């Protein structure tokens, strides 16, 4: 019997030069997934953990994840932001069970080891033993030092109210990590105004985590899959648009300016375009331009590997990718507004949120297509996708009729994964 299987290969085979044919195996291999966690989520990279507005006061905390590891984002007594791993230094318990709250210290209920909000171990019960009949029983060894047994502390970067963390103490500065082009789009959205949390949506999507990055690096599908986008001109192939990447092609921004909608040659010859479609209630699309947009009506930014920043007209959100195994991830949406929003604008953002999220008029089907792609990947991992719209190169463009951002991400993926 042959050692190598033609249906279930062990190594990903990339056809041709470049990354325009993506092996199904990169979505199905548990071994590659573990390497991705190690190389993308736990080393050299910044991961999104939340917004400062989620922990406004000293002691406020929020439990979240970096990759598959549970971490706590907390505001320390001095107002600074810390991120510590939710694993007790003693017996390894994930001690923090609430998703959010306010604490003066962290205490693991198992043996009551207590930590400061920074993660320093401050108390160990019976450390010096228990006195009984003039004798001291037990206790920790004399050379036990609390300073050796803190919680794992992550490196933290905050910018514009957004918090990133990294297990890697040597990770480059966040600004260098994003690069000047993507940083520009980041700062456009998070320009220093205080953020106001509007709430969360949580969905579990049975597909590989990279598929969500790819979905928002793929400007080809929105004008085809999403009727609302093409019919109302929110996002379609004839909109004025740019695609931008950082130097290493891991992050990207898709920038688009809404056209007038309606009929046009080519782009509306698609079955999803519905010329006669009229909303019974047009207030879903009560769009009011905001000064900070500076032109574009939509900028979708993918920060590799963990987050997507959404601006689609007046709806803004962060979308946190939380992988759990090679074939599934949790997708957590945090919708927000800005401190200086009028009540009218807040209501508008909330109304437009109907387009997005796990039931949204536009986004619900993104999760569906990811699930059905993953189903096929699992059944024939020897095969590959084709990402050749706009050529086989990796380049910034002044249009959206291309899959160049996906090719770019996999160029970076190969650099890191095959090193």
């Amino acid at each position, binding site marked *: 019997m042959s050692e190598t299987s033609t249906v279930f290969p062990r190594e990903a085979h990339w056809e041709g030069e470049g990354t325009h044919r993506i092996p199904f195996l990169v979505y199905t291999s548990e071994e590659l997934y573990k390497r991705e966690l190690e190389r993308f989520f736990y080393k050299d990279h910044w991961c999104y953990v939340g917004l400062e507005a989620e922990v406004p006061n000293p002691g406020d905390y929020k439990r979240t994840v970096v990759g598959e590891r549970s971490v706590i984002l907390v505001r320390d007594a001095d107002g600074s932001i810390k991120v510590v791993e939710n694993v007790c230094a003693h017996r390894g318990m994930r001690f923090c069970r609430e998703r959010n709250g306010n604490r003066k210290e962290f205490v693991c209920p198992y043996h009551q080891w207590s930590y400061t909000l920074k993660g320093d171990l401050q108390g160990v019960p019976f450390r010096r033993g228990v006195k009984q009949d003039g004798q001291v029983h037990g206790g920790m060894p004399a050379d036990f030092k609390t300073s050796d047994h803190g919680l794992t502390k992550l490196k933290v970067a905050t910018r514009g109210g957004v918090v990133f963390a990294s297990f890697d103490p040597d990770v480059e500065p966040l600004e260098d990590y994003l690069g000047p082009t993507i940083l520009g789009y980041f700062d456009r959205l998070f320009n220093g105004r205080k953020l106001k949390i509007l709430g969360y*949506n949580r*969905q579990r999507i049975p597909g590989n985590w990279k598929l969500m990055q790819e979905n928002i690096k793929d400007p080809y599908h929105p004008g085809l*899959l999403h009727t609302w986008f093409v019919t109302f001109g929110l996002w379609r192939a004839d909109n004025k648009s740019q695609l931008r990447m950082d130097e290493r092609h891991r992050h990207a921004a898709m920038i688009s300016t809404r056209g007038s909608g309606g009929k046009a040659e080519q782009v509306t010859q698609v079955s999803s375009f519905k010329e006669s479609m009229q909303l*019974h209630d047009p207030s*879903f699309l009560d769009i009011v331009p905001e000064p900070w947009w500076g032109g574009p009506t939509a900028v979708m930014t993918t920060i590799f590997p963990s987050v997507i920043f959404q601006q689609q007209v007046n709806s803004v959100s962060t979308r946190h990718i939380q992988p759990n195994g090679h074939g599934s991830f949790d997708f957590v949406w945090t*919708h927000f507004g800005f401190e200086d929003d009028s009540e009218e604008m*807040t209501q508008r953002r909330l109304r437009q949120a109907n387009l997005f999220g796990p039931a949204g008029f536009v986004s619900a089907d993104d999760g569906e297509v990811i*699930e059905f792609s993953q189903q096929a990947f699992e059944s024939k991992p020897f095969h590959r996708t084709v990402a050749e719209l706009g050529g086989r190169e990796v380049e910034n463009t002044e249009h959206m009729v291309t899959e160049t951002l996906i090719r770019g991400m996999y160029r970076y993926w190969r650099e890191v994964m095959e090193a």
Partner: protein
Amino acid sequence: MEVQAMATNIHFEDWLALTQLYSDYASAVDSGNWDLWPEFFTDDCVYRLQPRENHERGFPLATLSFTSKGMLRDRVYGIQETLFHDPYYQRHVVGAPIVRRAEPGRFECEANYAVFRTKLSEPSTVFNVGRYFDVVARTPDGLKFARRECIYDSEMIPNSIIYPI
């Protein structure tokens, strides 16, 4: 949450009409005939599908938030024409409503619900579990929902919600 008593000033005819409304609604949203759904509501109704987390923490965001019967009709059109999705059956099991407040022509009610989803070639699974918080209004066409909030416990939506809860 404050424990409230059940209203006691309700007549049998009203109770009968209310329980009929709840049963009819469940039957309609499980039928696959989506056009039935908006007709359970008043013209200026509120329909919200919201995670319990947002509800309890005072965050206004809902998974779906509609403020007119027109929006419900737009949702029906979305289900039928614009939202690509895996077809599925849904089955609501709704508890008897508890009437928190009864006023002339207006009732505030709550009811537990569980929705099961069955995809083609798949076993049935628990899909969405929560509680309805409702305001029911008496209209010339019978009892209608002036407000229906579906506050769901389910921490993770299994991919997507397409059909009305």
